[in-house]
């Protein structure tokens, strides 16, 4: 294979990595700051994809679908935090696992009732539908470049919010010492509600972006959830930087695994996780336990 082949696969791997980062960053944010293990995170990805299918179908535009869908996702996140998650902050992780697993079942059933069992496609907006030639026989779909670009923008915005804003300062403080933040007079309940809603919106946004290239189907949430947990475990729980590096590693390993070692492709990422955990049990950027 010529070198361009590997360059295009590199692009494929990075694009997949960006998408994973969007989902995994929300997951790790919730765990790092609120100490919540959220198994329903994948469901929010699925809900985002279905919202974009539903709304873009009605409005005829993916952009309008995303624009209308994001506020709905934020509201859903807020409601779930208020009526379910908020009762469990002081409880053991086992309770959180049970409750969020129940949420998966509820959301799957709701999805079936609302949208049925068929697989759906979402049209790529006309402006991004084409592809650009890279080499003599390789072209690259514009929409996939757009996914990567959108993820870079979101990642930069997250960095800015967390590092430069008052909200980010509270988030960072809350993640290292919850009692201290509370003692300083910050409304931790409100802070948690905001963070949870943002986490849900991040996952839903990832689902909306992925819908045109990944189809929309029942059970899509579970698939992304498992791989997102692998990202979080590799990167170190609670670390955004870890989530980024972990997502890129998995994007690249699974893409190159598919073409270079097809027989091993489905276990390549788990093998990598095992090696990394042997070497650093707390994950690449996790704090030592």
């Amino acid at each position: 294979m010529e070198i361009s082949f590997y360059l295009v696969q590199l692009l494929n791997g990075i694009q997949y990595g960006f998408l994973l980062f969007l989902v995994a960053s929300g997951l790790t944010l919730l765990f790092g700051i609120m100490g919540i293990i959220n198994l329903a995170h994948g469901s929010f990805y699925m809900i985002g994809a279905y919202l974009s299918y539903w709304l873009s179908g009605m409005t005829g535009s993916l952009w309008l679908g995303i624009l209308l869908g994001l506020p709905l996702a934020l509201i859903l996140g807020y409601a779930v935090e208020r009526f379910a998650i908020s009762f469990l902050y002081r409880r053991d992780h086992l309770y959180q696992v049970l409750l969020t697993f129940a949420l998966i079942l509820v959301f799957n059933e709701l999805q079936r009732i609302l949208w049925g069992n068929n697989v759906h496609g979402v049209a790529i907006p006309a402006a991004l539908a084409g592809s650009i030639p890279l080499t003599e026989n390789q072209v690259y779909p514009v929409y996939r470049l757009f996914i990567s670009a959108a993820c870079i923008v979101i990642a930069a915005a997250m960095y800015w919010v967390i590092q430069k804003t008052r909200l980010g300062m509270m988030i960072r403080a809350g993640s290292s010492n919850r009692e201290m933040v509370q003692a300083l007079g910050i409304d931790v309940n409100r802070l948690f509600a905001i963070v949870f809603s943002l986490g849900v919106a991040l996952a839903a946004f990832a689902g909306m972006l992925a819908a045109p290239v990944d189809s929309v189907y029942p059970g899509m949430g579970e698939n992304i959830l498992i791989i997102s947990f692998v990202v979080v475990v590799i990167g170190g729980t609670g670390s955004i930087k870890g989530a980024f590096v972990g997502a890129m590693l998995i994007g690249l390993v699974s893409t190159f695994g598919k073409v270079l070692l097809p027989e091993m492709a489905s276990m390549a990422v788990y093998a990598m996780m095992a090696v990394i955990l042997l070497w650093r049990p707390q994950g690449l950027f996790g704090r030592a336990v």
Partner: protein
Amino acid sequence: MSNEEKKGITRRDLIKGTAATAGLAAASLFVPPRFAIGAQAKVKVGFLLPYTGTYAKLGTFCRDALKLRLAEAGNKLGGREIEFIDVDSEANPAKAPELTNRLIKRDKVDFLIGPVHSGVGMVMVKMARGDQGPITVVTNAGADQLTGSLCAPNIFRTSFSSYQMGYPGGPVMLEDGHKRVALVYWNYGFGKEVAAGFKESFLAGGGTLVKEIATPFPEVDFQAYLTELAALKPDAIYTFYAGGGAAKFVKDFAAAGLKDSIKLYGAGFITEGVLEAQGAAAEGVRTVLHYADTLDIPENHKFRAAFKKATGQEADVYAVQGYDAGELILRGMDAVKGDTGARAEMIRAMEKAEIASPRGKLRFSPSHNPIHDIYLREVVKGENRVIRVAAKDQSDPAEGCSM
């Protein structure tokens, strides 16, 4: 004691007599229905088909078409009234043993019709085969074993085996002038069997397999593979995907810019039921299947009009398979005039059936698998148009079948 026995009717004799009379009365209930006086028992036809889940439409179409065929025949099987028993398989192999058992043991169906999913089919056929099992007609599941190593006198199939899906693809592509071909398919039971059938005929015909890519089921992210295919530059590609995967593959294939340089072929499912979702990306895709909606024969026109009238929907290949199952059990029951006890005679009639199906001529192999023509179709203006007959009277080797 011996003295007593000779005297008239003893108490013991009385008991014996009563028992014998009761036995006779009971036995008369089991006299074959054609000899019965008065009301006949109804023939029980049990469906094990999916009505919820991804395959819901397939199951519904199969059942409705079978009922349509029986309605055309006056809603009688061999002169007897019919009772339908309808069970939702949910296309779930885990639930198949319980549901099959219910139909066979509790409802005691005379005919068992279904399923769609091959996993359910394996369970269903394993439980139904044998001297006591109901006459079973497989109406979709393609697993080779169902009429291969699991074949039995009471098991018939009106759909297809995986082999029949894959094997005709090889000669078709060679005839179209494609010698260097890549094979891409979903890596699970049915996909592997289709791929094996394709390889057998394609390699024997002198073709070269540039690459074989088995992608994990049910993943639909094909980007990495398409990049690889672009680099390999084969003449053409043979594929097996279905449903959402089929819609996605054809769209991604076009988006990756491969549509103009590499001809796309596949087992019929890649363009069945998903043409609308695929849109322009499907134009020019060539597939092999034992049916096409546009097949221009009188039987097909008549069937499509009748199905449309009965259900309000356009028939498809799954409806045809159900319709032919209806015809097959009609033939069996007519031959024995409704006497389900004359099992061997009924099976012989079904084996010999030559059906003028909407798909063309349909017969059955010694293993009870269909023998039918396979068509090469091409998508033109959003329709699967028939290009030519790809394989005349395509049969199946029925590996491992002995009966």
